[in-house]
């Protein structure tokens, strides 16, 4: 199927009863926010700074409210149905990876409702950025994992690849706006996708990393890598697979709420015990934790690496701590 770009606004408007989120400017950078005017969408420039995980796992999310002295709690209103438009394949793959955690031993009710209520309309990356390495992590600029529809930008129109039942439902409501794609269109899309994959120049073979990490627990590389680390939350907050959160209470007048909010293993008070003891007392242990969690613990539990190669942590680290550089050091270190 094919959707002419000038019909995009109508396509989005034809989706009944769902809030559409898409990459739009918030301040100076892109993030996924509710679309009120489709003209504000920026689907073709670089990937959003804040990954779309923020829609299904908001940075701050109210769990319930309560009043001082009362014993009952009021759970938060369940969120409605959403469509995430313009999701990059790496970020969609990341959501499937994060699902492992939130649907592990117990289904996380807050995540469950947002995740099952969301449909993902992806956009193939045709101009990957310098630090993209999705092809090394099992994905690609046109990977369909986790997506309900994949769009490929053909210039005047989008080629639609409907991937799931959810995707079909979305198309049904906008059937009149879609036209049949020709085999030339499909061929053109394939060419663009292949060209994009070939443009990705940063590569690594991470297959040996999970086995090497436990042996490098006490290696001096961690102290060296973390020496310049500032201990800020950029790499984890903007990582599409990082999912740690903290829970806090906030009181205003008589009313209080319990909310959860993103947390980062790079922060000094992360896992700080009430006794004052911290099992990860310095940036060395915190950096080691970030890498081990992604490439060792996660693999042990869920058989997949918690990194999709989106490149955000490399692009935005203030001091050029480069996850590919770390992985090659891990790969080269004598065991």
């Amino acid at each position: 199927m094919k959707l002419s770009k000038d019909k995009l606004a109508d396509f989005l408007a034809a989706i009944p009863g769902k809030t559409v989120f898409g990459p739009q400017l918030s301040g100076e950078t892109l993030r996924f926010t509710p679309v009120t005017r489709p003209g504000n969408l920026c689907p073709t420039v670089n990937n959003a700074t804040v990954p779309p995980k923020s829609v299904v796992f908001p940075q701050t999310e109210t769990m319930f409210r309560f009043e001082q002295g009362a014993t009952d709690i009021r759970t938060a209103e369940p969120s409605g149905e959403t469509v995430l438009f313009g999701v990059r394949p790496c970020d969609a793959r990341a959501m499937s990876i994060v699902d492992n955690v939130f649907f592990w031993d117990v289904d996380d009710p807050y995540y469950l409702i947002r995740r099952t209520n969301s449909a993902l309309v992806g956009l193939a990356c045709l101009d990957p950025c310098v630090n993209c390495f999705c092809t090394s992590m099992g994905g690609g600029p046109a990977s369909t994992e986790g997506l309900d529809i994949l769009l490929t930008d053909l210039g005047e129109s989008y080629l639609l690849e409907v991937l799931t039942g959810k995707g079909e439902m979305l198309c049904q409501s906008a059937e009149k706006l879609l036209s049949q794609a020709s085999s030339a269109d499909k061929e053109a899309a394939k060419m663009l996708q292949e060209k994009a994959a070939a443009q990705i120049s940063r590569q690594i073979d991470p297959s040996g990393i999970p086995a090497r990490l436990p042996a490098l627990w006490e290696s001096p590389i961690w102290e060296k890598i973390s020496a310049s680390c500032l201990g800020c939350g950029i790499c984890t907050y903007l990582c599409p697979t990082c999912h740690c959160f903290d829970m806090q209470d906030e009181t205003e007048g008589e009313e209080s709420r319990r909310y959860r909010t993103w947390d980062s293993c790079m922060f000094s008070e992360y896992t700080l015990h009430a006794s004052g003891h911290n099992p990860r007392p310095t940036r060395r242990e915190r950096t080691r934790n970030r890498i081990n969690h992604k490439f060792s613990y996660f693999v042990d539990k869920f058989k997949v690496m918690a990194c999709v190669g989106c490149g955000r942590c490399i692009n935005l680290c203030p001091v050029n701590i480069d996850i590919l550089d770390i992985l090659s050091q891990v790969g080269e270190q004598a065991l």
Partner: protein
Amino acid sequence: MLDLDKLRALAKETISRDDIKYLIGWRQGTYGFRTSPHFVGNLEDAEQLIFSPLCSSNLATYLTLAEKRPVPRGAQPDTRRVAIMVKGCDSRAVVQQLVEQGIKRESVYVIGCPCEGIIDRRKLEEKVPHTLERVEARWENGKIILDLPAGRAAFPRDEIVAGKCLTCRYPNPVIADVTVGEDVEVRGSAGFEDINWLEVKNAQERWAFWRDKVNSCIRCYSCRNVCPMCYCAECILDKLNPAWIQRSVNVSENTAFQLARAFHLAGRCIECGECERVCPVEIPLSHLNRKLVKEVSEQFAFTPGIDPEAKPLLAGYRPNDREAFIL
């Protein structure tokens, strides 16, 4: 022009001294226009040292960021000095830390690096996107020369340097035990014309401007962590009981955070611009800092980070201090 061989020879000589623990400088980064802080502990490390228009990090942050591990029983604490390379703005951070007694003079060995302006990576990447190969840069006759994969390119300095460099009045280090290279011309003016456009707006317009910016803050605290003047052992932002500023991320708490951060720097900010450089959502924090610098300058004729013998602004008192702002 800076002679890298001389710099590396100086570094080797420095780290060979008995009273030096290690040297903090810069090295080429892993790709494109990036550089990285570089901790030089041996002669081999010294070979990677660089100083160029790409050396953006203010390394003074590491003087207070380095974690002190417990000294084993019976062992003596390592009291050797840390050698640190500083640009003009960075040197002001060292002075301000000395003034506040955050560090001791005998604990640092300052290598001054006169600086003609540091490249703003965002400005450069707009002109030269998609650069993976490592690029070297240097100052030459008022221009910045880049060895790009496509060949050599010269950019007028003012087109690609950071905003802070356009207003910089201290390109030459204000404190140094040894200096690398020649002193450079001071180009910045003493005025605050750069924030005029924001000051002339009325309160509602200014709030609309800041609300939009602050709304995009993700509270990663990179602005605080990179700041060489943010070195409190326990930061107000990390306090949970009482939680002066909530962890929840919204306009109200974000504003409280950004205002607390800016006000804690009143009379202390040395305008290295690191907070603005590292912000992943590009909040123009220097506007806020510049406004406070202006107020401090106009109210108290005080410029922080210049004189190591000075008293901190808020710890000093002069009978003729202006009081017009007291209601």
